[in-house]
């Protein structure tokens, strides 16, 4: 019987050792994963930061009804290149209210580079300009357009 007892004892010891080793790996793995996410271990520092509450579910670049919600720009090829290069300094509203030809968008970019600290856009310039001319094309309104979007109401005396 004592041989059986010894054998059981041996198995138990091996089991505990393996469990210990496994737990060690798990802990080391958890630390490594945490390190990948937060290399500065900032969660353990008591610095005073400014916290902004964000809905974790919310995608900041979500698109609804063909419109990029955060900026109001139309969905289209090159959208995110425009968002990332053209809305840092000024509002996207300055883009969406304008209608220009390819030549004039390029001239505007040149002007922003010469006077407003815009960086070299490299290959992105073509992407941006083609997004702009296809989503915000020039419309010919003649010398004086008709009145539109009139909200009719009864005028009381």
């Amino acid at each position, binding site marked *: 019987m004592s041989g059986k007892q010894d054998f059981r004892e041996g198995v138990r010891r091996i089991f505990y050792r393996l469990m210990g080793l496994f737990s060690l790996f798990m802990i080391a793995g958890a630390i490594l994963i945490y390190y990948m996410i937060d290399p500065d271990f900032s969660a353990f520092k008591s610095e005073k930061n400014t916290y*902004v509450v964000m809905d974790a579910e919310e995608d900041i670049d979500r698109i609804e009804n063909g419109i990029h919600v955060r900026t109001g720009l139309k969905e289209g090829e090159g959208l995110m290149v425009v968002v990332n290069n053209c809305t840092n300094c*000024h509002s996207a509203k300055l883009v969406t209210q*304008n209608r220009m030809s390819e030549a004039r968008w390029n001239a*505007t970019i040149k002007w922003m580079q010469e006077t407003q600290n815009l960086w070299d856009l490299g290959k992105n310039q073509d992407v941006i300009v083609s997004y702009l001319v296809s989503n915000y094309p*020039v419309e010919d309104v003649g010398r004086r357009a008709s009145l539109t979007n009139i909200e009719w109401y009864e*005028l009381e005396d």
Partner: protein
Amino acid sequence: MERRSFIKKATLSSFAALIGADIVFGSNILEGYFPIGLQDPDPFTMFNKHKEMVVLNDKPWNIEAQAHLLDDEITPNEKMFVRNNGLLPEEVNAKTWTLTIDGESVVNSKTYTLSELKSKFKHYSYQLTLECGGNGRSEFNPPAKGNQWTVGAVHCALWTGVRLRDVLEDVGIKNNAVYIGYHSTDVHLSRDPKKEPISRGAPMSKSLQDETLLAFKMNGKDIPMVHGYPLRLVAGGWPASVSGKWVNRISVRNKVHDGAKMTGTAYRVPCEPVAPGEKVKDEDMCIIESMPVKSLITYPKTGATISEGKSLRIRGHAWAGELEVSKMEYSIDFGATWNRCSIEPPANRLAWQHFSATVTFPKRGYYEVWARATDSKGKAQPMLLPGWNPKGYLNNACHRIAIKVK
């Protein structure tokens, strides 16, 4: 008013007051955390603007009125357009605010505190028409680059301050002075501290006019932050960009001022007329001075339906830059015939003038009431868009409203 520290120092109760609701679990809020309601402030609350004002741009702030909002004889703050070129100044303290007069053409540069300006010089109040040079830009064809103003980038408020002339005389100006240029504390969009968002000015002849003020009050109160608190240069009748906000320095130049938005194509039109869409070289562009004759029907709001046989009272304002409006007319048949409106003289030079008329319609149907002002030199507003220019300035085409008679 130190905007940033104001927010930082604000207590929870003032957060609650700003948001308009109690902050539940307020005592658990982390130090250094700003409630989200204050991070993206609503411009209507922040600048005290009427809810029907239209935001064209939020960085920088550009907000315009609609014609019917401008019905007051003296425009209140809530209906005044905002045209900012940069970000609002980060710190403004009226107690320590100073104005320095320098430049090539001063004898010695001199600095005044705000209270010195107020106590040393006589105060004057004028109603002054300020219109953005790009008001009406949205109608140009081919379209012009920039904020697409429709009709609402104009106002006439009551400004109180000291005459720039009195201050310049106190400093002592050399006889080679050509132009003044203002400098302000607003911040360039790129946040580059070496760049000024805008630094424009006016020739000496405009700078020395009685009505050109260094203003510290608007409509009897401190100037609102977004309109230039605590000190604004106000030069009525010229593009509103001449009226620099948050002014802390004025340079008297021995040449045309070359600050930001004085050069290139900014606030300039072709010296000689060009065809729509034509390219114009920078050296062929000339600085805009006096604004052209223009008018706005402010009552009723466009889209009014009236019963057959009823007459319609219309009213509005007319202005003509440096000049006066001498004649005001309306047409209900697209300019085939014109009828006179009555028009009041201006409250003072450079103030807009109020007009009114009683309009009758011959039968039922759709009408447009068009308004046309003529200045004291006989120039009238065009019914079509005036001369095309690359930046879309100076659209003074007749304003019109739609009316239906049932």
